């Protein structure tokens, strides 16, 4: 930190009073602090964050509920003699032995068992009958059915994990999309607000423009990061409480990578949004410059929903900087990425982010004082 009083070129008595100017880091910190403080005071922000967290919590609870329903409780049945032994053996039933058909029927009627298996009264090829109380359970009949041997030649292409993959992909895509658009838009708005109200002139006379931009990006990144951490924490706790530890074990690594990718990816988007905001002078015009960026965010979101089972698309997505934050964690979840792939992709993202920040800050600096209509991109890029 250089202070005027220490500087030898300052003539004596030139300075009346006042403290030394803050350092670059302090300036960035002050700007970031204001961004965070103002955002946390905004009801819109708090409500939308609350809704996002609720949606995710609901997803986890519903997922847990469905998982329980299909896999858990063993069905109680009564068996007369050793009827249907070949069908019942090796399956998870809670078997009650009944002395005869009448006893079995009584057990079914009383609700102690769901169904009873007794010798068939007609010439059914299975040789057994299943006795229900008022309504036949197809699930149970399916469970009791004899099935031919099944051999799958390409087990990786199996669609049974498809739904889970879809949900996980949707989860990453949604969280990325919502966070990036929310905080991106708020950066653009905050830039335009300063430009529109001209407070930017006062700020520029107090601190360097790059400190202003960096502070804005930092402040909003902290908020976005905080939100992502809250979501990650909520997911982990939710999955643990609802007993979905198996899914959690599979998601752990991808979630960590998602957070890492998100941080870098968000900084890249933040610089873009700030530059886009600085091109216009009024809040009403923000859309005209931020829409292309929103599109960039929407592409990975939709791509991951439609192509999450297409390895080629997902591989490409996991390396393109704008979609890597979604693509790479999904590939890690599926297990189709080598250990070095996220590192390489992260490197590409980091380099892109650095370039975008350079270009973005140039646009930002050149456009801040140009009022009126939309500043042309070519004009903003010129010195």
């Amino acid at each position, binding site marked *: 930190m250089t202070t005027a009083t220490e500087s030898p070129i*300052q003539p004596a008595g030139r300075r009346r*009073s006042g403290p030394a100017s*803050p350092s670059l880091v302090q300036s960035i910190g*002050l700007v970031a602090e204001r961004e965070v403080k103002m955002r946390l005071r905004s009801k819109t922000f708090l409500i939308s964050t609350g809704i996002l967290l609720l949606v995710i919590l609901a997803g986890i609870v519903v997922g847990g509920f469905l998982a329980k329903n299909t896999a858990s409780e063993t069905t109680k049945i009564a068996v007369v003699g050793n009827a249907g032994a070949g069908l019942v053996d090796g399956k998870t039933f809670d078997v009650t032995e009944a002395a005869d058909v009448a006893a079995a029927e009584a057990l079914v009627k009383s609700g102690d068992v769901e169904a009873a298996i007794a010798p068939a009264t007609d010439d059914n090829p299975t040789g057994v009958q299943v006795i229900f109380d008022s309504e036949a359970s197809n699930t149970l009949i399916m469970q009791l059915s004899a099935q031919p041997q099944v051999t799958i030649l390409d087990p990786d292409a199996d669609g049974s994990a498809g739904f889970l993959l879809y949900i996980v992909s949707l989860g990453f895509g949604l969280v990325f999309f919502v966070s990036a658009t929310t905080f991106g838009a708020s950066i653009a708005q905050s830039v335009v607000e300063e430009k529109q109200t001209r407070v930017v002139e006062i700020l*520029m*006379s107090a601190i360097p423009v790059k400190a202003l931009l960096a502070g804005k990006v930092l402040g909003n990144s902290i908020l976005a990061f905080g939100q992502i951490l809250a979501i990650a924490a909520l997911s982990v706790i939710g999955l643990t409480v609802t007993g979905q530890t198996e899914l959690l074990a599979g998601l752990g690594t991808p979630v960590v990578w998602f957070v890492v990718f998100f941080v870098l990816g968000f900084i890249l988007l933040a610089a873009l949004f700030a530059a886009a905001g600085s091109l216009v002078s009024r809040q009403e015009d923000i859309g005209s410059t931020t829409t292309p960026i929103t599109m960039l965010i929407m592409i990975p979101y939709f791509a991951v929903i439609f192509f999450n089972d297409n390895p080629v698309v997902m591989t490409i997505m996991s390396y393109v900087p704008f979609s890597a934050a979604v693509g790479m964690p999904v590939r890690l979840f599926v297990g189709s990425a080598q250990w070095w792939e996220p590192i390489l992709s992260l490197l590409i993202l980091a380099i892109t982010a650095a370039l975008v920040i350079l270009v973005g800050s140039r646009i930002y600096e050149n456009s801040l*004082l140009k009022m009126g209509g939309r500043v042309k991109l070519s004009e903003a890029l010129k010195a």
Partner: protein
Amino acid sequence: MLELSHIDKSYGERKVLDDVSFQVAPGRMTGFVGGNGAGKTTTMRILLGVLAANAGTVTLDGTPLTPEDRRRFGYMPEERGLYPKMRVEEQLVYLARLHGFTTHAAKRNAGELLERLGLGERRNDALESLSLGNQQRAQIAAALVHDPDVLVLDEPFSGLDPMAVDVVVGVLSEFAAGGSPVLFSSHQLDIVERLCDDLVIIAGGRIRASGSRESLREAHAGNRYELLTAADTGWLRERAGISVVDFDGGYALFDADDAQAAQAVLREALTHGDVTSFAPLRPTLAQIFKEVIQ
């Protein structure tokens, strides 16, 4: 002493400032006067380093301005700039902290200023909830909150009612009296006339006149005199070297060919009766302004 030397600024083909040079002396209020689009705001932005000049230098006490110096400036932009949704005191504290103040010192300064400017009770209100005049006061507080060494104010009085003008004039005069240069622009010439020690007139991007208010009035005074006596002034019309512009009993307004002729009129008037007043007619700022921008 804040000094601008040979500042040029063009936007593309259009030259908005052409060889602009003037000084803002410490402890004096310098009024910066010009029509719309004359270049006042551009000049002030260059002073603040918000805009870069194409040529020319700005120096403070003889050395070129550094960003560090400029941080010790207080600035009020033409179009008012504060955060609409932030509380008044909160944003003053923020701005002071951006200038390096501790939170504690920033709060003290902001509190004192708001009291001085009559905004003490509104300190915790969002800026946008204040009336325009009160927003203006908050804006002035924002320019002063970091105890600046130099004040640059673009149209500080526009939108203020007469009471608020008095409050602001008081605050600014006190600031200048502390030995700091103050430059303010205005198109309200009567306020400038009342307030400024020095004057800079700009038109079409060029400085048309600058200097102390009195010396400018002197320079543009011409040869018109005003005489008020107890006796009738009809005799004036007969005198050589005098042409009467207006007269009514004991009051006469006349142009004299030279100072001697005017003094001779005074001597003669005393022989006719008591003279209540005899003075060269100083032009008002508005008259000088009209004259120099033509």
